[in-house]
C-alpha cells in the first residue's frame, strides 16, 4: 500500500510524467475505433461474400491442385478436379447436420465476339438473303442494301480523310477501291439477283475497313439459376426474368451489362455523371475532358450502326434539343461538346430525348448471344439472355461484385470443353479408326531426344476423287435440359450454406470425412472470395503495421521520458534507500509508475475513442464508392464498439508503457544510496 501511495504521489507531483499518460491515451483513442473498423471490414466482406455466391463453405474434390474461388483472380480460374456425379455429392452434403442449402457452381472466363458496325449489318443482310426467293425478300434486301450503301458512303468518306492524312499501304489500295465502288448505286444494281456475290465482296474486301470487332468478356458462374437466386439473399433481378427450371440461358451481371453492352457513348456519359457527383469538374479534371473527346471520336461508329429511320428521328430530336437544323454528325458533335455549364441539362436530354432513337444496348433480355470460353477451348454456345441482376448493396453498376454473370450449369459444363461419357467413347472409337491406339498407350513423349525425320515416298491422288465432302454439322444444344442432365453431371465446386447456429469450423472435418467416390475438401468464404477477400487481409496487415509503428513510437517516447524523470529523482531515491527502502522496492515503485500512467491513459484514451466512434458514425456512414460497399458489407457503415477489441487495446497499450518503463526503473533503482545523496547535495 505504501508503495502504491508513493507511486501515486510521484506521478501527481511530477506533471512531466503525465506525457506518458497522454501518449497512452492518444494511442488508445486511435486504436479503439481502428480495431472496430477493422472488424467491420472483416464482417462486411464476410457477409458480402457469403450472401453473394461464396456461401459459408466451398466444397471441392480434395485432390484438386487449387482451391475454388467465386471470382477469377489474376491467374484466371483455379484448376479443380470435377466432382464426377454432382447429385451424389450434394445428397451426402445435405445429410450433414447444420447444412441449410447446397448450390452447384463452376467458375469460367467467357467471352462473346462483336463484329464491327459493317459486320453487324452484313450478318443481317446474309440472313435475309437465305430466305426463299419472293417479292417480299427482294423488297427487304433492297431496303437493307440501300441502308448499307448509305453507311458505306460514310465509311468511304472517312477512309478518304485517312488516305489524305496517312500514306496508304499498297495492299489496302484494292480494298479501298472496292469500298468506294460499293458506296455507288451501280454496285447494287443486281443485288437482289445474286446477293451472295455482292456479300462476298463486301465481307472480304470492305467490312474489315470499319475495324476488327472486339471480344467482350463475360466471366460467369455456372449454377442452377433458380436455386442460386433463392439461396443467396443479395440476388436481385434488375431486368428480364429468371429462366424457368430446365431452360438454358444467361443472367448477366448488371455491371458487365452496363460497361460492355451499353452504347459506349451512353456508358461514358454515365461515367461522367458519376465523376461529377463525386465532385470532379471538366475545368479541373483532364480525365473528364478525355472522355468527352472519346465520345466525339465515336460518332462515325454510332452513325454506322443507325438505320435510316433511327437516324432521321435522332436528327429531328437533336434539332429540337439544340434549337437549330444541321447534318446529323454536326448536330451530334455539338450535343456532345460538354462542359460544367451544360452537362446536367444534356445528360437529362440524352436519356429523355435521344435514347429512344438509339440502340442503347447491344443486347436485350430475350436476345441470344454466342458465348465461348477461349481459355478452356470449349465450343461456342448460343445462349438466351434472360435478364440482368445485381447483388443488393454491393456497389452500383460499376462494381466488381456485379460483374460476374450466371449461366446454367449444363451450358457451363459444355463451355469448359469437358467431354461427356458419350464423347469420351467417341474419342476411343476415333483413335481406333485413325490407327492411333498405339500412340495413346505411349503416353507423354520426350521433346529432347529426336532423330532426323524419316522421309517416305507418298502417294497422292492426282485426279479428283469426285466425292464431295458432306457431313452432319454439329447442332447447337437444345434450349432446355432435363433435371437428370443438370444433376447427374459433373460440377467443379458447390457452395454450402449453414443453418443458423451451425459452425463452418465444425462442419469442415465432417465434409472431409464423407465416404464416396471422391474425397471432398472445403474452404471458407475468405479463400473462396479470392482477390476480393484478399484485400481484407491486406487491410488487416496495413492496420496492424500502423498499430505496431504507433506502439514503437509510444514505447520510445515513454522510455525516454521515464528515463529523464528517473535521473531527476536520483536524490530522492538516495534518501529513500538511506531510510531503509530496498532496491527491489524502488524498482517496483518506478515500474508501478509506468503501469499507472499507461493504464490510466489507455482507459481514458479508449473512452475517448469510443466517444469519437459514436460521434463520427452516429446512425451510420453512407458509403458511395462501389468497391467500399462490397468490403463494408453494404451502402451504410455502422462500426460497432467491440468490448473484446477495446480490452485488447487497453491491455496492449498498458503493456507497451510498462515494458518501456523497465529500463528507466532498473537504471533509477541501481544507484547506490551514498552516491545518490552526494549527487543530490551537488
Amino acid at each position, binding site marked *: 500500500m505504501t508503495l502504491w501511495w508513493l507511486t501515486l504521489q510521484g506521478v501527481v507531483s511530477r506533471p512531466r510524467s503525465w506525457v506518458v499518460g497522454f501518449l497512452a491515451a492518444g494511442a488508445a483513442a486511435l486504436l479503439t475505433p481502428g480495431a472496430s473498423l477493422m472488424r467491420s471490414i472483416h464482417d462486411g466482406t464476410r457477409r458480402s461474400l457469403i450472401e453473394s455466391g461464396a456461401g459459408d463453405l466451398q466444397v471441392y474434390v480434395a485432390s484438386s491442385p487449387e482451391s475454388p474461388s467465386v471470382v477469377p483472380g489474376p491467374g484466371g480460374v483455379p484448376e479443380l*478436379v470435377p466432382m464426377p456425379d454432382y447429385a451424389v455429392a450434394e445428397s451426402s452434403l445435405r445429410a450433414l447436420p447444420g447444412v441449410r442449402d447446397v448450390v452447384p457452381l463452376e467458375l469460367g472466363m467467357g467471352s462473346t*465476339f462483336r*463484329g464491327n458496325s459493317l*459486320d453487324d449489318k452484313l*450478318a443481317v443482310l446474309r440472313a435475309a438473303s437465305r430466305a426463299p426467293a419472293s417479292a417480299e425478300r427482294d423488297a427487304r434486301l433492297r431496303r437493307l442494301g440501300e441502308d448499307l450503301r448509305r453507311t458505306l458512303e460514310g465509311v468511304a468518306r472517312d477512309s478518304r480523310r485517312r488516305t489524305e492524312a496517312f500514306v496508304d499501304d499498297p*495492299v489496302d489500295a484494292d480494298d479501298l477501291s472496292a469500298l468506294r465502288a460499293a458506296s455507288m448505286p451501280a454496285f447494287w444494281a443486281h443485288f437482289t439477283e445474286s446477293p451472295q456475290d455482292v456479300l*462476298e465482296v463486301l*465481307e*472480304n*474486301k470492305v*467490312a*474489315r475497313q470499319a475495324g*476488327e*470487332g472486339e471480344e467482350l468478356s463475360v466471366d460467369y458462374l455456372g449454377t442452377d439459376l433458380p436455386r442460386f437466386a433463392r439461396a443467396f439473399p443479395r440476388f436481385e433481378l434488375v431486368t428480364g426474368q429468371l429462366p424457368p427450371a430446365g431452360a438454358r440461358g444467361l443472367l448477366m451481371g448488371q455491371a458487365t451489362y452496363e460497361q460492355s453492352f451499353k452504347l459506349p457513348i451512353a456508358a461514358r456519359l454515365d461515367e461522367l455523371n458519376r465523376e461529377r457527383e463525386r465532385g470532379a469538374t471538366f475545368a479541373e479534371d483532364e480525365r473528364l475532358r478525355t472522355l468527352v473527346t472519346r465520345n466525339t471520336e465515336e460518332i462515325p461508329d454510332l452513325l454506322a450502326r443507325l438505320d435510316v429511320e433511327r437516324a432521321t428521328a435522332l436528327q429531328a430530336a437533336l434539332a429540337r434539343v439544340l434549337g437549330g437544323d444541321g447534318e446529323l454528325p454536326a448536330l451530334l458533335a455539338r450535343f456532345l461538346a460538354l462542359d460544367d455549364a451544360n452537362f446536367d441539362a444534356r445528360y437529362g436530354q440524352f436519356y429523355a430525348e435521344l435514347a429512344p432513337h438509339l440502340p442503347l444496348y447491344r443486347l436485350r433480355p430475350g436476345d441470344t448471344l*454466342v458465348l465461348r470460353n*477461349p481459355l478452356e*477451348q470449349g*465450343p*461456342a*454456345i*448460343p445462349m438466351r439472355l434472360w435478364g440482368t441482376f445485381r447483388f443488393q448493396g454491393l456497389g452500383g453498376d460499376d462494381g466488381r461484385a456485379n460483374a460476374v454473370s450466371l449461366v446454367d450449369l449444363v451450358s457451363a459444363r459444355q463451355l469448359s470443353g469437358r*467431354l461427356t461419357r458419350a*464423347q*469420351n467413347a*467417341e*474419342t476411343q472409337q*476415333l*483413335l481406333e479408326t*485413325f490407327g*492411333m491406339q498405339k*500412340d*495413346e498407350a505411349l*503416353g*507423354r*513423349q520426350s*521433346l*529432347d*531426344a*529426336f*532423330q*532426323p*525425320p*524419316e*522421309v*517416305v*515416298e*507418298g502417294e*497422292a*491422288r*492426282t*485426279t479428283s476423287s469426285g466425292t*464431295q*465432302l*458432306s*457431313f*452432319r*454439322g*454439329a447442332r*447447337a*444444344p437444345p434450349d432446355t435440359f432435363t433435371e437428370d442432365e443438370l444433376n447427374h453431371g459433373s460440377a467443379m465446386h458447390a457452395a454450402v450454406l449453414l443453418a443458423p447456429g451451425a459452425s463452418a469450423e465444425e462442419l469442415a472435418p465432417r465434409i472431409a470425412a464423407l465416404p464416396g467416390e471422391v474425397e471432398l475438401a472445403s474452404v471458407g468464404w475468405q479463400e473462396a472470395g479470392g482477390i476480393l477477400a484478399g484485400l481484407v487481409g491486406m487491410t488487416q496487415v496495413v492496420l496492424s503495421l500502423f498499430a505496431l509503428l504507433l506502439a514503437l513510437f509510444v514505447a520510445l517516447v515513454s522510455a525516454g521520458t521515464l528515463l529523464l524523470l528517473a535521473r531527476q529523482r536520483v536524490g530522492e531515491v538516495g534518501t529513500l534507500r538511506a531510510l531503509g527502502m530496498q532496491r527491489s522496492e524502488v524498482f517496483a515503485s518506478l515500474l508501478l509508475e509506468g503501469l499507472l500512467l499507461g493504464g490510466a491513459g489507455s482507459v481514458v484514451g479508449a473512452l475517448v475513442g469510443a466517444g469519437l466512434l459514436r460521434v463520427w458514425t452516429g446512425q451510420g456512414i453512407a458509403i458511395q464508392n462501389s468497391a467500399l460497399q462490397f468490403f463494408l458489407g453494404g451502402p451504410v457503415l455502422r462500426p460497432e464498439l467491440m468490448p473484446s477489441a477495446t480490452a485488447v487495446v487497453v491491455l496492449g497499450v498498458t503493456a507497451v508503457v510498462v515494458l518501456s518503463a523497465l529500463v528507466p526503473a532498473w537504471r533509477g533503482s541501481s544507484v547506490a544510496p551514498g552516491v545518490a545523496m552526494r549527487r543530490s547535495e551537488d
Partner: protein
Amino acid sequence: MHARPRVSAVLLGIALLLPAVGAAAEAEAKLAPEALLRHIDEKMSFASDYKGVVRMFETKKDGTKRALEVNVYRREKTRELLFVSTQPAHLAGQGYLRIGRNLWEYDPGTGAWRRTTQRTNVLTTFACETDFDRSRLAEDYTAAEEGQESVSGVAYRKLLLTAKDPNGTVPFALLRLWVDPQNNIVKRVGYAPSGKPLRTDIVRSYQRFKDPVSQQQVLHYREVLETDEQQGSQMLVRYEEVELAPLDANIFTKAWLESRMR
C-alpha cells in the same frame, strides 16, 4: 608390321568412312539463313491445288484425350485456305476460311461466320492456322544463325527466326528451328515476344510427292508431335489422304462450306 593387319586396317578405315561419305553426298549445301528459309518454303510448296486429311490426337495434362479429323483445302498460288473439322460429331462443321487477308470462322451450331484475328488455338485445340497452310517462313520471318547442336550423334543447324511484322498474322513472334543435314526442319519452338516458349513441335516424318503441275518433288509433313508449353497438352498430328488435283472452283466461299452441311 605384317601385311595382313595393314590391309585389315585400311579396309576398316574405308568401312568406317563410307557412311560419312554417303551422308556428305546426301547432305545439302550449307545455305545462308535467309536462303535456307526460302529453300524450305520452296521444297514444301505445291503448285497444284491441295486437299488433305489431318488427324489429330490430343492428350491434355489432366489425361483427357481428344481425337479430331480435319479436311484441308488449299490453293497456294492465291493463298486461299479452307479447313473444316469433320469429326468428332460435336465439332463437325467448325471451319476456317481464308479469303485475302480475312480469316473467317464458321460455327455450325449457329450457322454464323465471324472474321477472326485469332491465328492460334483454332478448332478448340492449340493448333494454329499455319499448321494447315503452306510453309511461308521466308515471307514472315528474318533468320539468324545460332550454330549447331548435336542430339543423339547428329549435328543440327539452329536458326532463330524473328517475325517481320510481330503484329501481323504469324502465330509466334519468335521461332527457333533445328534443321538436319538434309535441310529439313526437325524441331521447331515458337515463342512469345518476351521469349517465353509457347509451343514445341518435333517433325517425326515427311512424305514426298511429285507435284502434277510443277513436276517437282514436294516435301509434306507426315507426322508431327506438338506440345503446348503453357497448358502441357501434347498432340500427335498425321497428314494423310493427300490429293493433288484441281479443287472445285467455288470451294473458297462461305456458301460452299454451308452447303456441305447436312
